[in-house]
């Protein structure tokens, strides 16, 4: 049994039972993406449309590789958070909503990690 009062258990947690955790985490990833977008998009724009050697060369450097891995990881985390809010707003019914939220989490994790893996493979093995 818990000795905490009912009030202490519920304060700040709201109907989603996680307080402002999701909201705050979404702001954190959005702030992180401001510099990451600028740093990642310049080399990316230089590499898209170039021969494969140029792409491999671009992400062999430690800085561009780390920035790109961070950019992909934070982008897909932010995407997961954003799509979660959209699903919560528009998908109704406990079963459908839960299924959509699970699919969103798993797909974003899968594709985000795939992007990080690709950059790591280029950086470590040269492709």
């Amino acid at each position, binding site marked *: 049994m818990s000795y905490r009062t009912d009030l202490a258990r519920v304060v700040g947690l709201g*109907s989603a039972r996680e307080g402002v955790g999701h909201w705050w985490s979404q*702001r954190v990833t*959005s*702030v992180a*993406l*401001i510099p990451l*977008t600028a740093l990642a*998009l*310049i080399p*990316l*724009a*230089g590499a*898209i*449309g170039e021969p*494969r050697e140029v*792409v*491999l060369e671009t*992400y062999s450097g430690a800085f561009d590789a780390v920035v*790109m891995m961070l950019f*992909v990881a934070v*982008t*897909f985390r932010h*995407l997961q958070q*954003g*799509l979660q809010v*959209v699903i*919560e707003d528009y998908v*109704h*019914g*406990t079963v459908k*909503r839960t299924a959509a939220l699970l699919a969103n989490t798993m797909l974003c994790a899968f*594709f*985000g990690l*795939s*992007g990080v*893996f*690709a*950059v790591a*493979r*280029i950086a470590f093995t040269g*492709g």
Partner: protein
Amino acid sequence: MADVNRGDRPLSPHLTVYDQSYTGTLSILHRITGVALTLGSLLVVWWLLAASADDEYFALVDGILTSWFGLAILFVSTLAMAYHTLNGIRHLWWDMGYGYELQQVRRSGQAVLGGSVALTVLFWLFAV
């Protein structure tokens, strides 16, 4: 979460009873650009995976991204990204408690719209 409107009770008037306002359009555009950027993000991941794999696979994905259709998606994605980033900064500014006067909201909206077009054009002129 409880399902709303059990017992088919009447709902209060919703979106359809209002005229769509300029600020409201910018607001929904933030969500639309965010969802739409899913496509561009997946394309970039696919391209990175192909580059890390082998020449043949890279040629396939590179061909799709540099076709007129691929380039059109990339161009619209950079426009959406510029808007979503600048409007996101506008949202962070609001989160800190600033810029809520009607005049300020309209002005910052115009700045975001103009800034997105300018950023996109500059990006494609100089970075690409």
